């Protein structure tokens, strides 16, 4: 459409991610490294799933549209499963790396906790996933035209931006829940993560009924966000403490340089 749509959609899609990066990750180089490594692992999963996609499309019948649609569904499911597998792989790698880091470092405690790693890796996954979802669309939004000449819905850019924001937040929450359940060996919660990821991806097949796909997605974002909050040590009591600003004494007593 124009520069205003470009910037609007960029801010919508990447706003929370940028804010999180600026305030929580940018100052700590170790977190930045793990963020980028997380992004790389997501990229590996994408590479694998796109290889499989490429091969299956080549050998499929290009004329039959039902076959192509089936292939698309298969591709989405495969990609989700591969992403989660890579997340698991990254978890295993981080566990091993942590032991190594502990041996090398002078301090007695780990420089970065597994919970923080979970958050950072989830955000890394989210960044890369959001970039791949959105950059192509943003590039085309700069031009003077908007979608619709062939009858498609006009709200494509806006809904893509919101969807991308939801996906980035979801990846972050899933990262936290995933690592936590791997630590505690709660395999059922792992399955719920995978199922919710599949659910959100399959909801996008509702497009172009954007309401049908965005509203459930945001409900899922809220629910998984709550779950991640509780997994990472939050509780209603702490929330009330913060919101009513009775936390200063608490903070002073527990102040520790980060």
């Amino acid at each position: 459409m124009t520069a205003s749509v470009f910037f609007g959609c960029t801010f919508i899609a990447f706003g929370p991610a940028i804010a999180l990066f600026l305030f929580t990750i940018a100052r700590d180089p170790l977190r930045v490294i793990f963020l980028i490594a997380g992004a790389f692992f997501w990229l590996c999963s994408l590479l694998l799933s796109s290889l499989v996609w490429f091969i299956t499309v080549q050998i499929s019948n290009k004329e039959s549209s039902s076959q192509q649609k089936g292939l698309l569904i298969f591709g989405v499911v495969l990609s989700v499963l591969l992403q989660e597998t890579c997340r698991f792989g990254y978890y295993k790698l981080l566990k091993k790396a942590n032991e190594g880091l502990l041996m090398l470092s002078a301090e007695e405690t780990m420089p970065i906790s597994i919970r923080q790693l979970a958050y950072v890796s989830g955000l890394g996954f989210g960044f890369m996933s959001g970039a791949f979802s959105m950059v192509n669309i943003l590039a085309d939004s700069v031009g003077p035209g908007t979608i619709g000449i062939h009858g498609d819905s006009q709200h494509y850019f806006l809904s893509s931006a919101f969807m991308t924001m939801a996906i980035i937040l979801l990846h972050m929450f899933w990262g936290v829940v995933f690592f936590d359940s791997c630590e505690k060996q709660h395999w059922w919660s792992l399955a719920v993560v995978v199922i919710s990821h599949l659910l959100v991806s399959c909801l996008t097949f509702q497009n172009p009924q954007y309401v049908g796909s965005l509203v459930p997605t945001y409900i899922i974002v809220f629910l998984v966000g709550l779950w991640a909050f509780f997994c990472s040590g939050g509780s209603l009591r702490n929330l009330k403490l913060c919101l009513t600003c009775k936390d200063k004494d608490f903070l002073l007593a527990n102040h520790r340089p980060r």
Partner: protein
Amino acid sequence: MKSHWMCSNMVRCLGDGNTSLQKLATSIVFFFCLSDVSCNSVEQKIYVELNNTVPCVRLLNATHQIGCQSSISGDTGVIHVLESEEDLEWPLSKGPNPPYMVLLESSLFTRSIMMKMKNESNRVAGVAVVVPNTSPPEFSPHTTCPNENTGVYSDNYGPNLAHCNTTVWNPRGNGLSYEEFDFPVFSLKEDNETEFIKQCYLDHNRAVNGSAPQYPLCAMQLFSHMHAVTNTPTCMRRNDINFSINPEMVCDPLGDYNVWGSIRPYNDTVFGHKENESVVIAAARLDSRAFFWEVSTGAEGSVSGFVTLLAAAQALREVTHEAPPTRNILFAFFQGETFDYIGSSRMVYDMENGKFVIDLDNIHSVLEIGQVALHSGNNLFLHSDPVSRRNNTVNDVVREELFSSFFPNVSQPLPPSSLQRFLRAQPIPGIVLADHESAFNNRYYESFYDNAANLNLTYPSDLSPEEQLEFVTHTAESLTDVATVVARALYKQAGGDESRVNTIKADPKIVTQMLYGFLVSSNNSWFQAVMAPELKNILTCVHVLGYLGLHCFVFFCLLEPSPPEYYYLLANLTGAATNLTQSQCQKPDELPNESRQMYSYLWVQGIVPPNSTERDSFCVRASVRLTKAVSPAFELGEYASKDYSTWTESRWKFIKARIFLVASRDLEMLTLGVGVAVLFTSLLVTYFISTKADVLFSSTREPASAAY
């Protein structure tokens, strides 16, 4: 002064010259689409590219620029299909969503409408003209008095005849081709794309019940940014700025090659005056133009003339071998005559300065073939220059030339013709043969509609293309008669044997094949047979990488065939087939009787014999040459010259058109607003959370020290 040829723009030579980074990015995306994955690229959902468009480009001369220009990132406007001249109020004043892209039917493509839009050009983003398959009753975008300042008539020479004071040659001319528009003007064909555009307009842009149409609106974007500005001296000066190894050229002089051939060969290395040599020149012009770039065929304006002359040349071949006339006959085909006589002024200049095989004193007389196809009955008219005929010797020769009982009107000037440039140099007896007595019969002079239909060139509907090629149409027959008359007149004028004049007859089959090739389809078996194999699909451009720029022929107003086509035709029609092999044909000087200085040797494909698939190629030897047809103003460096043509054509990077929907400004601002709000909110929330993180996520740390 650069002496080699410039290519008019890179697009013609290299294909798509667009090198922007974004295109690189999308081409990377497209790379994945190439592997036949059904790629629904976002760009395809937004834009519909228009492929069959022809732009109007910018031309410059010593003092002005003409043609059309778009801004560098294209001009976008809301489409409005114009219904009548009164409807022009909507885009020009009443419409609420300027700027508008006005879509015109060809009946509305008139001077008054275009001038009104030119005056309100801040509300008009561009114009698209839908060109129908049938021609309007008359349309000529050229001026009423073609080439009035570079002909022979001026304040010093026949002042009462200058500037069309006595005869207006092109009364239907509206002069649109010579106006300057600062918005792009494109032409569209009447096909599915145009239907799609009109449907898009009807769906989105119509005002319902008097209220403004609702967003999103259907819009069009036209790219035709021209690099040259102001006039020729400015753009030639900018060409010479050498900032880098590969200098950016902004314009190129219009120019190409003239083709000439003669009955008796001349040594190509000996220039200047030839003693006791008297030559009759038979001239015709090759080119034509239209308002839009390169779409002109010039059926009546140029094709009729040069086809007649080619047929006459072929008719004279036999008789001049058996009974050579006393004087030589030189057939000259001039290129670039539309733009202030580029070809003929160059030949006259070369003759004056001893750079041509003969000079002006060797010329006995000139017979020029003008527009000859639209004659009713058998009426042809002879035009001569009354001023030079006041000289008795000239007059006598001219009267000799008159080969029928037609006497030209002695008070009427010459029509625009190459002969005028010869007369500018010195008084030479000359006649112009035409089908019009005063004003042109051609209703579509220098227009896109001057095509086969203008000549009534019709074929029976059940013929295959090969059969159409051979079918002798009425037009071909009448042009053959003209060619016969011309050939006989030339032979007599050259002092040939009187008794053999009546044996000279032009061949109607050749005439009809040439008309088919130039007006219907140039990809036919006869044209292929007379051309060389490797030049058949020449892009007329050889890119010399790096410094020297591009060597090629600038083809303006030509058909798809490359310029040497006339060269090959003349060679085949006047020359002789030889027994030389292909390698001998390329190096004939090694043979005792052959000489490259006297003849040209061309290896042509030949026809396919009935029982085989290999072509019967052979070597043609003909006294046919190409000479440069670039205005002397560029040789001399006088870019502001008043005597010679100074026309140049601007260069451009890419030309394209596309349509899409545009959203309202409000929606865009809303999107930006929401984005900024989301960003601020998330920054605030994140700051809040990160400062309170110890509290929020502390339930596993030191639970006992809760002071609560």
